[in-house]
């Protein structure tokens, strides 16, 4: 941000004026169709699908209880009013009723917990991946390293390493230029993965906590400096999926998106070959945005040293 504190007061007024002007522009340019507006994004992995279904199931159960409980409450509000001459009853205790409305919710909870438990166990199973990628959170961008993990694809992308930085321009962010459809959700180097393959993501961070989150893949994993955590996904559809850092990490927290491009296996191999050729030919590793800090410490040594 290039605005300075000394001009804050006038900039507030200017900002309000600009936002009024921008609201007109926005209303006209509202052709952007999001994948989802009221619900979880359309899932493209089995886990994300399970999460989606779990959410629907529990929403429906809660909805039914909600209607039953508040049906009773609003009926009482309607019928048992003093103004319609209703006389108060005297009851104030009933052990049977108390036991019923303790036990029945408990049983309903078990009904909910069962599929949830199975999903938790599936989510935690990061074994036997086809491809392993380390995602490192920096203030404020992501670094990706394709590792020599296990599985068939361990050689294919081994050694590919790059940063992924927000590509939305400062002019767009400060309302000096019209906003792109992928405003704040676009990066210079996207993470490329093959469709139908189990991708294991190792997360860590260089400075503070971050979280690697792609809603359509059903993956959110904190990135913790000095520690390595893992998660996994198997994308079922070719396409581009966007997410954001989900753990407050300082002033640019809202400006370090994650973009995953799922390619067919063939395209992925071609992309990887190209990328590796560029790297081994001694082309400079894709550098960070000008002025960004050079990666250091734990994460950095892991990046280069293996």
């Amino acid at each position: 941000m290039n605005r300075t504190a000394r001009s804050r007061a006038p900039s507030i007024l200017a900002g309000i004026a600009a936002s009024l002007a921008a609201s007109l522009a926005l209303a006209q340019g509202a052709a952007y169709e999001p994948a989802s507006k009221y619900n979880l994004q359309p899932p493209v992995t089995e886990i994300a699908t399970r999460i989606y279904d779990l959410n629907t199931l529990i929403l429906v159960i809660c909805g039914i209880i909600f209607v039953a409980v508040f049906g009773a409450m609003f009926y009482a509000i309607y019928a048992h009013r003093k103004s319609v001459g209703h006389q108060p009853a005297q009851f104030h205790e009933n052990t049977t009723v108390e036991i019923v409305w303790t036990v029945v919710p408990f049983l309903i909870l078990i009904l909910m917990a069962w599929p949830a438990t199975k999903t938790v166990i599936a989510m935690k199973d990061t074994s036997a991946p086809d491809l392993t990628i380390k995602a490192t959170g920096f203030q404020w961008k992501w670094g990706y390293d394709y590792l020599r993990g296990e599985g068939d694809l361990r050689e294919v992308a081994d050694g590919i390493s790059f940063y992924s930085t927000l590509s939305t321009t400062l002019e767009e962010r400060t309302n000096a230029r019209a906003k792109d459809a992928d405003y704040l959700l676009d990066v210079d180097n996207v993470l490329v993965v093959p469709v139908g393959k189990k991708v294991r993501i190792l997360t860590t961070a260089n400075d503070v906590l971050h979280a690697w989150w792609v809603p359509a893949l059903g993956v959110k994993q904190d990135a913790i400096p000095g520690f390595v955590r893992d998660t996994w996904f198997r994308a079922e559809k070719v396409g581009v999926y966007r997410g954001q850092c989900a753990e407050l990490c300082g002033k640019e927290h809202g400006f370090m998106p994650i973009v995953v491009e799922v390619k067919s296996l063939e395209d992925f191999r071609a992309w990887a070959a190209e990328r590796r050729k560029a790297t081994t030919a001694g082309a400079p590793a894709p550098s960070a945005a000008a002025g960004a800090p050079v990666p250091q410490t734990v994460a950095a040594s892991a990046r280069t040293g293996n």
Partner: protein
Amino acid sequence: MQATHDHAAGHDHGHAHPTGIMRWITTTNHKDIGTMYLWFSFVMFLVGGVLALLLRTELFQPGMQVVEPEVFNQLTTMHGVIMVFGAIMPAFVGFANWMLPLQIGAPDMAFARMNNWSFWLLPPAAALLVISFFVPGGAAAGGWTLYPPLSIQMGPGMDLAIFALHILGASSIMGSINIVTTILNMRAPGMTLMKMPLFAWTWLITAYLLIAVMPVLAGAITMVLTDRHFDTHFFNAAGGGDPVLFQHIFWFFGHPEVYIMILPAFGIVSEIIPAFARKQLFGYTSMVYATASIAILSFIVWAHHMFTVGMPATAQLFFMFATMLIAVPTGVKVFNWVATMWRGSMTFETPMLFACGFIFVFTMGGFTGLILAITPIDIQLHDTYFVVAHFHYVLVAGSLFALFAGTYYWLPKWTGHMYDETLGKLHFWLSVIFFNVTFFVQHFLGLAGMPRRVPDYALQFADFNMISTIGAFGFGLTQLLFLYVVVKCIRGGAKAADCPWEGARGLEWTVPSPAPYHTFETPPVVR
């Protein structure tokens, strides 16, 4: 909130009392101190509200308009800290001070001087929080949860926040010791524990929670402080520490804290519903047990705030099951309230409107809480606006609405005047409508993938953010109406009877309105 005019008439101990400002500084009277707590929390509520409106203004549209991202983070952080520790918690302590002695037939709180001290710790702490905006680097900007390593990076604003939290915590602990001692030792003859009003019960349990967890918070933030300045490495992996350790400690405090802010609200609502249904509370005993169960369970669910840190599956499952269990006693409470209303003879004065609004809207927050308890769903929704919506449903529509309900319910006792019923009802309807306009759409934002604590967002989130901001301004302005109603009631209005509510029961309604400066100097006898 100023039932103190009968000062001279109410007692005569033959010694002079200070007047003017010195009266308030030196007072040991539970009613004076309760009044100060309530005004203090209302002022902090307005301060926190202004911060919220500033950040909602930035979020009115995509793009950066009003504040820099770093200032935005300061706004979210300080909004949270001020509302939790400056507004909601002191407000409930204010209610405890005013009402507990009146409800249990005690002449005052057990430790009157400590009571004065626990109040007067608050203004310096609040001053530290406000001053922190003006130190180099500005106020703390790491979120109200103060997670390291980010909180290690902050400027001196973080130190001021930590010191303020230490002071506020000390105040809370003293207040809690006072409440526990008062309730356990100073009940009127014949008032057994199981005859106590539920407000006293919920506060007794809350006070134990406070005593248990405030020192834990103090420990956590002290470790941050020493990590910042004295080269300890509690939370620094390079020195053998672990950032996640902080989260475990913080949430061991943080989850009981959630119930600290809601259990007294349950108590207030449990007083009001029977009064306006003209029917005894249904299931008193089970209400007490449900409150205790919630308090005990609150100690074993903390890690549901951190499902995404990468725990083993067994830990995730344990915390999921334990969290889901809380739905059972909470459900029992809601069922009991509805059963109390059932076949009553209800009228809907403002306290009852807020109590019904509380049940309705709080329960929606309960349902989203259950959804968030399910680990796989939480992993999708953690740190999104869905969580923001959830905790505002339980903290605003829960705690705050109960505070409003209690204020309208006891204002006649505090001031000796009836408040303006029409304006009170208007306050309720505007509050409940604008509350939902503000926060209901945030569920959609979170589900569709908007992270929380971001100063700017993708275009797909624009409409709902605009709606939310409009609702926030409506809600904020509505609270000025509340201030007007309260001030109007203090300054005059119809004379309130000793018991202005037809169905209200309890010792507080046996003393005159306004309550004289000293009450129950001779303990009443409970049948």
